[in-house]
């Protein structure tokens, strides 16, 4: 294990646009909305930023390649801008780039900004496409809900969970996020929904119904990072520092080798274990105060809580039904509404999760403020259960 970057990087400022169907805004306006809040919060001048990392996911319908879209939108002073794309982990990847630049000493101030403008396609759901030219010739004619629905099928098979029990558990996951999202003025969906509505919703990809799927949203989020020493020298108190950043990428064994049973995220198990080690966390179920995980689909969240080593394998659905992850539970998960209700502008999502952590640790989370959170973990999963990138970040109070 490498030495890691625990407490070498501090978050100096953050910003996040309102998420939702932003018919009024293009990617440029969303970027600026997040950036204005972020730079004001950081309290530095744009000229002080040494380097930037820019994340988007679905370039086919988006701003285009390279660092130029960010540089031109913000009129950055010709600094290095790196465009990163790693599917749903893109936002956290931009953050990782910025943090590593600061940790290495290459930059004193680094910007990470993620944006996704999805609602310019003319149809619901994620923008489609047929994939890379070879994949087009043989990959199943699938969608994201169809891929994650199979996680539910395989999970039920592996652990002998009945379709009824699972449906209730994943229904509770979505119910909880709607409860939380109702308290978040920046969330895409701010309405609480009762269990009956959730369970009776139309099927999208069996067994996932409409409420098992997260929103398709426009939005942007940004962070400026520096060292804890510089943050202190700028007069900052309540400093939030980075404890661990880990990424695990599938190498084809789940999709191509019969050793994987389809019921869990191989990569998430690896990334989270490494992150706990980097952060020096021995017993995550007791030490982590809050989670923002990748609830692209309700079942993803349920299974992820096992793969993050919080719930016992095959028992996560019971923790969910026990309210363990509710706002008033032992470890609140998705206190900001999650992807489900805050929304999922892909390139921004990882940074949005960190934004919530940052607000919570500083006691600025308004109606959804948790009592004295100290350590939080964010998690993004890009791709499908059989082939994905899983990124994990641990942040907390610098003490």
């Amino acid at each position, binding site marked *: 294990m490498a030495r890691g970057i625990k407490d070498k990087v501090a978050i100096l400022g953050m910003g996040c646009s309102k998420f939702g169907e932003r018919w009024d805004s293009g990617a440029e306006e969303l970027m600026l909305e997040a950036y204005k809040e972020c730079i004001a919060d950081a309290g530095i001048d744009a000229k002080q930023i040494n380097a930037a990392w820019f994340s988007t996911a679905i370039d086919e319908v988006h701003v285009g390649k390279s660092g130029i879209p960010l540089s031109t939108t913000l009129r950055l002073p010709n600094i290095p801008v790196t465009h990163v794309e790693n599917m749903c982990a893109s936002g956290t990847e931009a953050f990782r780039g910025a943090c590593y630049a600061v940790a290495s000493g290459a930059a004193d101030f680094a910007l990470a900004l993620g944006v996704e403008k999805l609602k310019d396609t003319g149809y619901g759901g994620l923008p489609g496409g047929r994939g890379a030219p070879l994949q087009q010739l043989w990959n199943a004619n699938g969608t994201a809900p169809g891929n994650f629905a*199979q996680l539910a099928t395989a999970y039920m098979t592996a652990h002998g969970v009945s379709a009824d029990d699972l449906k209730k558990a994943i229904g509770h996951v979505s119910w909880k996020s709607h409860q939380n999202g109702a308290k978040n003025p920046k969330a895409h969906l701010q309405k609480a929904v009762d269990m009956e509505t959730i369970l009776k919703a139309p099927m999208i990809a069996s067994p996932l119904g409409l409420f098992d799927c997260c929103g398709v949203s426009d939005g942007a989020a940004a962070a400026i990072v520096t060292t804890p020493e510089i943050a202190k020298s700028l007069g900052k108190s309540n400093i939030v520092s980075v404890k661990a950043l880990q990424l695990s990428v599938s190498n084809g064994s789940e999709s191509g080798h019969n*050793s994987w049973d389809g019921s869990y995220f191989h990569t998430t198990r690896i990334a989270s274990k490494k992150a706990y080690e980097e952060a020096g966390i021995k017993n995550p179920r007791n030490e982590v105060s809050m989670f923002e995980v990748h609830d692209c689909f309700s079942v993803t969240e349920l299974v992820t809580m096992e793969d993050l080593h919080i719930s016992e394998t095959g028992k996560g659905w019971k923790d969910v039904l026990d309210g363990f992850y509710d706002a008033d539970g032992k470890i609140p998960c998705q206190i900001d509404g999650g992807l489900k209700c805050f929304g999922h502008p892909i390139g921004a999502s990882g940074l949005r999760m960190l934004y919530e952590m940052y607000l919570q640790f500083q006691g600025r989370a308004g109606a959804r403020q948790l009592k004295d959170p100290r350590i939080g973990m964010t998690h993004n999963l890009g791709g499908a259960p059989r082939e994905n990138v899983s990124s994990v970040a641990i942040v907390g109070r610098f003490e």
Partner: protein
Amino acid sequence: MVGIVAYGAYVPRLRLSRQAVYDANKWFAAGLRGLAKGERSMANWDEDSITMAVEASRDCLTSHKAEDVRNLYFASTTHPFKDRQNAGVIGTALNIEQNLLASDVGGSQKAGTSALIAGLNASKNGGGPALVAAADKRLTRVASANELNYGDGAAALLCGTENVIAKLVGHHSVSMDFVDHFRGDESDFDYNWEERWIRDEGYSKIVPPAIKAALAACKLKGADISHFIMPSLMPAVPKQMAKMCGVGEGAVRDLLGANLGDTGCAHALVMLVDALETAKEGDKIMVVAFGQGVDVLVLEVTAENARLPKRKGLSGWMKRRKEETNYMKFLAFNEMLPIDKGMRAEFDKKTALSILWRKRDMIYGLVGGKCRVCGTVQFPRTPVCVNPNCHAIDSQDPYNMAGLEANVMSFTADSLTYSPDPPAYYGMITFPEGGRFMADFTDSDKEQVKVGAKMRMTFRIRDNDQMRGGFKRYFWKAAPV
């Protein structure tokens, strides 16, 4: 001795209720009432003459090695490609390319028998085994008699000189431009002349002399024929022709109209497979096909027929059946209904032909890899072994997976993705030998698709690139066993 050494057939699972067709159209064509009985086979949206011919060929090769085939003839009047060898697609799907002469035969309802004669002659002259596949999927006008009479299907016959199950006794052909119907270059549909004229001036004057000439060449009498095979859209005509040639009425084979329909230029061979399934040693089979002339073949069944290893055959595929009463679905599957497919159907389906060429054994042959170091079977074949405990480089030999059964590990029914037949069923299938991939399912119902369900691989259309004149993308899908 040259003759047929193996047979196979294929019939799509769906059987369209003729009553349902009539009920939809009777307001316009009440005269079709007499045809509103039984059912006709109906190709799934992902089937065409190539995919059906591949299935029939696989059925036929149950008992024989594909790589021994030296000549491949594909007869159809509905070849999916006008210029691109359709038989070559079948060859690639069967993983035979080398030492193969492949030919498309078409243009007439006797294309199937003409291909069979060519195949037998090729084998007779020391050319090695010849595979003759015939398939048709003909489009028909709404509320036409053809719509009710036609069916979709395929047959395949392997010709050779070893272990012959039905030896060629003789054949005779005449070619004359009698236009009973035609399908011009600018139309998808057949245009038929009056039946009574076809019967009196066509069949009655052209067929009997040809049959008599064939009998004479074979030194046989009409009464010697035990199975008389002659497709016709007029059920009385074969009986009439038999009578005119002294063939016993009991020898005239059923036209399979009640549950299958007329499968076009494949039908004579489909009926031949039907006959071979139960024919006894010494039976003499006469096959007659009419279409701008007539082909007549006479075959004699040998003792080998009883020893031919079991296959699905026509009867097996006929048993796999699902009634379809939704006429709108039939129209939509045949692209005859401007249905609102939604924006997700608009994604470009351009095929990189250079990739298709490099990966043709993977895409058309479903050939994966087997690692020489650890023995792991995998799909696709890649430069580095997928086994997490191996990862050997350049270690894989080609491994054919098309014939393997697979199990469903996980699946879904997706209502979001565009499918011509929603919801789209797909899932992770695993092969007990090793290997897995996320596969589209076809011919699947809710009741059949379950975790652990056994699936067989079937060659199907994946996409139709209508922006470029209808380039069909083929790949393998999983269907319930």
